């Protein structure tokens, strides 16, 4: 066996066009072994296309990419032995049971039937699907399919795992469960590249993030670095009337590096220090004898990210949180 490469995934100048659509416009990525790398971007940014290229499903028009030091274009078969893929849309046979789906994938990855059977059971257990294991997948709910799809990516225990929007369509509990699985996989030494549209998810999971838009990486860094650059949360206080709001704003001037901004009965203050500022604001108001009626904290959203990175909102900006059902295979 050759010595372990330091980079699990490396991509240089990857380009891919679909007719006139430029899906990838020279993407560079480096993911060290053992990292969780997040690819963040709005609809149509090129996330799925990038994952397809890196998993040998799609050939790039130009550029080079390697997984564990092997070229995705010239050594595709050996790359496939090293990767697990859970695509954006659950890829399962609806007329097989959950267990049969996992075993089929297992037998297609050259592991013995006995081992495949055992791992299928373990994975069903791990993804809380044991009870549904013998039911046809066509009777599964969206979230159950999603979990089974992720399980199917892990049957052959690949060292490099690609997850395309793994938690879209999951309920909060399943989402937290999945985050735990991802952390476990990495603790076992796996490298994970995942895409997401959720800032919170990227924040929780990723060691390193790349923000991608219109097929190009427009920012890269740790979540903390990016958030610092991407701007700030906004604290909004509501008061009984305009006069109180104005008084409150005067009182609060100087508590933060950013000046308070009055809009009618509301006062907005940008914060780069999270809850610390919140405590200070409330204490100041309390000392001044003013009581706010409402309090809202706006965390930086993906839209804010783009706003601050590109100076313009995303073209078809989707609501960043729990967007409506965009499951199901889109028309192509």
């Amino acid at each position, binding site marked *: 066996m050759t010595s372990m490469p330091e980079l699990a995934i490396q991509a240089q100048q990857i380009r891919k066009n679909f007719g006139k659509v430029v899906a990838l416009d020279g993407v560079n990525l480096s993911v060290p072994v053992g990292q969780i790398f997040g690819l963040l971007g709005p609809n149509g940014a090129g996330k799925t296309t990038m994952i397809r290229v890196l*998993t040998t499903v799609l050939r790039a028009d130009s550029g080079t990419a390697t997984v564990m030091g092997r070229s995705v274009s010239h050594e595709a078969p*050996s790359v*496939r032995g090293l990767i697990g*893929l859970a*695509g954006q849309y659950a890829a399962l046979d609806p*007329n097989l049971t959950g267990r*049969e789906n996992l075993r089929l*994938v297992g037998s297609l990855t050259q592991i013995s039937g006995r*081992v495949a059977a055992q791992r299928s059971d373990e994975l069903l257990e791990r993804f809380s699907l044991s009870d549904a294991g013998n039911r046809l997948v066509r009777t599964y709910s969206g979230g159950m399919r999603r979990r089974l799809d992720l399980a199917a990516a892990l049957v052959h225990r690949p060292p490099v795992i690609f997850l395309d929007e793994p938690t879209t369509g999951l309920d909060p509990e399943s989402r937290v469960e999945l985050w735990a699985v991802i952390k476990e996989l990495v603790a076992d030494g796996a490298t994970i590249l995942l895409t997401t549209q959720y800032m919170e998810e990227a924040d929780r999971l990723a060691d390193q993030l790349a923000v991608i838009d219109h097929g190009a990486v427009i920012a890269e860094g740790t979540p903390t670095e990016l958030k610092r650059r991407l701007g700030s949360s906004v604290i909004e206080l509501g008061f009984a009337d305009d006069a109180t709001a104005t008084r409150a704003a005067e009182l609060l001037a100087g508590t933060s590096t950013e000046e308070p901004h009055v809009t009618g009965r509301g006062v907005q203050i940008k914060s780069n220090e999270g809850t610390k500022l919140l405590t200070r604001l409330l204490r100041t108001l309390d000392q001044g004898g003013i009581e706010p009626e409402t309090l809202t904290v706006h965390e930086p959203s993906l839209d804010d990210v783009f706003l601050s990175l590109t100076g313009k909102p995303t073209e078809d900006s989707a609501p960043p949180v729990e967007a409506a059902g965009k499951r199901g295979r889109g028309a192509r």
Partner: protein
Amino acid sequence: MTDSPLLGHAPKRGIAALPGLVSDTTALTKRNLLMFRRVPQLLVFATIQPIIFVLMFRFVFGGAINVPNGSYVDFLMPGVFVQTVVFGAVGTAIGLAADLKTGFIERFKALPMAHSSVLIARILSDLTRNIFVVTLMTSVGFAVGFRVHTNPAQFLLAVLLLLAFGAALSFIFATVGIMVREPETAQAAAFPVMAPLVFASSAFVPVESMPGWLQPFAANQPVSAVITAVRSLVLGGPAVSDVLIATAWCVGIVAVAAPSAIWMYRKAV
């Protein structure tokens, strides 16, 4: 070391890849055949339709159709056999389109498996279905008065020819299925291609009864060629040249359609 995590599974090449190809093909063929149990409509449709044709032509239209020699049911059954495998081949298109639609094939593409096994397994499972359907139709034929006038060996050869033709057509419909990616569309797209081949053929009526302009096509198109060969093998008469022509069609179709199916599969995501 077999169970050590995060090992990766190196693929094999050349001769060493053969066991992998065999086991992948077996796994996928089994899974395809399981579909006939899980979705029995697939098989019911594939069998009810030709049975209805047999009954309709044997008992309703048959009396009005004059055939050169022998009984109409003996003329009809070879036509029905061929019709069965032609319509059955659409199943190949539907199966592949469904696997593309569910994204199953995208998953396959990222797996360290023998990729040719996807097409091979599809052809094999459709071949198995054809064996079943042809056997069934033979029994139906016998029940309504059809008789083999030659010998069992020639009849067996006729069945092999039918199965070979079905497999050749499967390659064409594999291409169609991958192209349209939508099972319903696959069904719809296949019909206009097949209908003229099946109906403007010698399957149900002698070509001589058709208008003059249609006869050259009806007599020489592949479906008629196979029907003619099957008739010669089953009803008697000189069969060698008919069988050679039909075989040539099968080989020719595979030579063109197999590379196109493989090419389409490679391109498909």
